[in-house]
């Protein structure tokens, strides 16, 4: 398949689908709370509405960073889609692309952080600190995953890992990856950086209009990226089965995660960091097993 066409289709799919599935998640959370909830296109309405709103610039902000940070975050996640296929199995693979994807995700966290600090608001500062604590731990956990994958597949190229061979280590890795994916998607209990009752939306507090829209959109895109990565690891190479499997997976996984998220309480940042430290034991375990070829 022509990789360029596949990439274009994949990116457009991601852009259209990410807010839509967030709408579905809201409906699911509402049903689980015995409510009707907003229509599934509500998230799209919200993003479009934000684009039409006026941007308010805080007086103490460092304007250049404040304005460019949302774009940096959005673009870094969007660029990752060049290497991670969604609905069509084609991407711009090259040696080391998995590391690039990890770095791009890290960069989006850094962009959040920079935007928050440049706003000059103390709440954003607190939120940014939390974001960085989480990001650092996420990177460590992702490092174990990347390391194990590299050992298992003797390669740092993503298409060699799509799908993974069925081994003990790969199953443990996938389970581990799901947990890390949940944490990186900023879902309760890990939505600590943007905790609304505690720090009034944290890094986003001074953002409005299209910048706020970009930030929210970035989070939705990130979630679909991580989900797609997981699906690529498990779906077969046969194009027809893969597409069917992908569509089912990219709907079911967010729905299940939403149902789980609805029944969790938020953690405190020190508790979350401690949790992730304990989680890294599994990462080390998976890596060691993969060294033995299991």
């Amino acid at each position, binding site marked *: 398949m022509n990789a360029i066409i596949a990439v274009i289709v994949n990116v457009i799919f991601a852009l259209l689908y990410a807010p839509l599935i967030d709408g579905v998640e809201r409906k699911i959370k509402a*049903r*689980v*709370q*015995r*409510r*009707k909830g907003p229509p599934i296109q509500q998230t799209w309405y919200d993003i479009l509405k934000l684009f039409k709103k006026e941007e308010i610039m805080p007086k103490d902000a460092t304007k250049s960073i404040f304005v460019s940070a949302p774009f940096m975050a959005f673009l870094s996640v969007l660029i990752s889609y060049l290497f991670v296929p969604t609905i069509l199995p084609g991407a711009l693979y090259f040696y080391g692309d998995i590391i690039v994807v990890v770095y791009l995700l890290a960069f989006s966290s850094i962009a959040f952080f920079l935007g928050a600090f440049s706003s000059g608001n103390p709440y954003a500062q607190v939120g940014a600190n939390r974001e960085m604590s989480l990001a650092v731990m996420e990177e460590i956990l992702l490092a174990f995953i990347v390391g194990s994958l590299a050992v298992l597949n003797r390669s740092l190229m993503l298409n060699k890992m799509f799908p993974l061979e069925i081994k003990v280590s790969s199953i443990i890795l996938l389970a581990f990856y799901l947990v890390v994916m949940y944490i990186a998607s900023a879902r309760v209990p890990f939505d600590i950086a943007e905790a609304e009752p505690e720090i009034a939306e944290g890094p986003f507090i001074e953002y409005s209009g299209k910048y706020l829209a970009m930030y929210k959109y970035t989070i939705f895109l990130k979630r679909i990226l991580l989900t797609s990565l997981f699906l690529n690891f498990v779906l077969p190479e046969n194009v027809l089965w893969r597409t069917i499997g992908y569509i089912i997976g990219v709907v079911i996984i967010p729905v299940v995660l939403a*149902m789980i998220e*609805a*029944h*969790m309480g938020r953690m405190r940042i020190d508790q979350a960091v401690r949790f992730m430290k304990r989680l890294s034991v599994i990462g080390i375990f998976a890596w060691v097993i993969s060294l033995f070829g299991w």
Partner: protein
Amino acid sequence: MSSMGRLRMLIDSLSHPRVTEKYPYEPIPIPEDFRGKPEIDPEKCIGCAACARVCPPNAITFRDDHEQGYRVLQVFLGRCIFCGRCQDSCPVGAIKLTKEFELVSLSKDDLYQVVKLELAKCIRCGKYTVPYRYIKYLMEKGPKILKYELLLCPECKGEIMTLIKYHYAQEVHE
């Protein structure tokens, strides 16, 4: 683990219907004694203004026009607190709190209800006194007093009482 409670909650929610009411697309059930908008039945109202006297926020007011000879009772919903004291104090059950609660309007006039009652005239000097219907009510239901007292204005009543007392005192004296 700590999942059992969550799982139970999830299954419980999924096995019960949504609780979202369909209002305003469907009417919402209102209990019998709901305290909604107060309304005066102009046929029953006797104009005693007891409601105006007990209304805590002074949403019910009255004004007597002694030139034209009528009393105007006004209920202003903008001040009403829907307490129902007016309903409790009305001797004839003319003002009642209905079950209506959708009181939003684009025109402030919709928030006023006005009842106009004719004032009776004093049979001696012709001045306007209190609403005619109020006098009629007191004649039928009130304590047994001289009917004529009800048909006099306060000043005339005072003068006649003085005269009566004077004559009575004179007779006793004689």
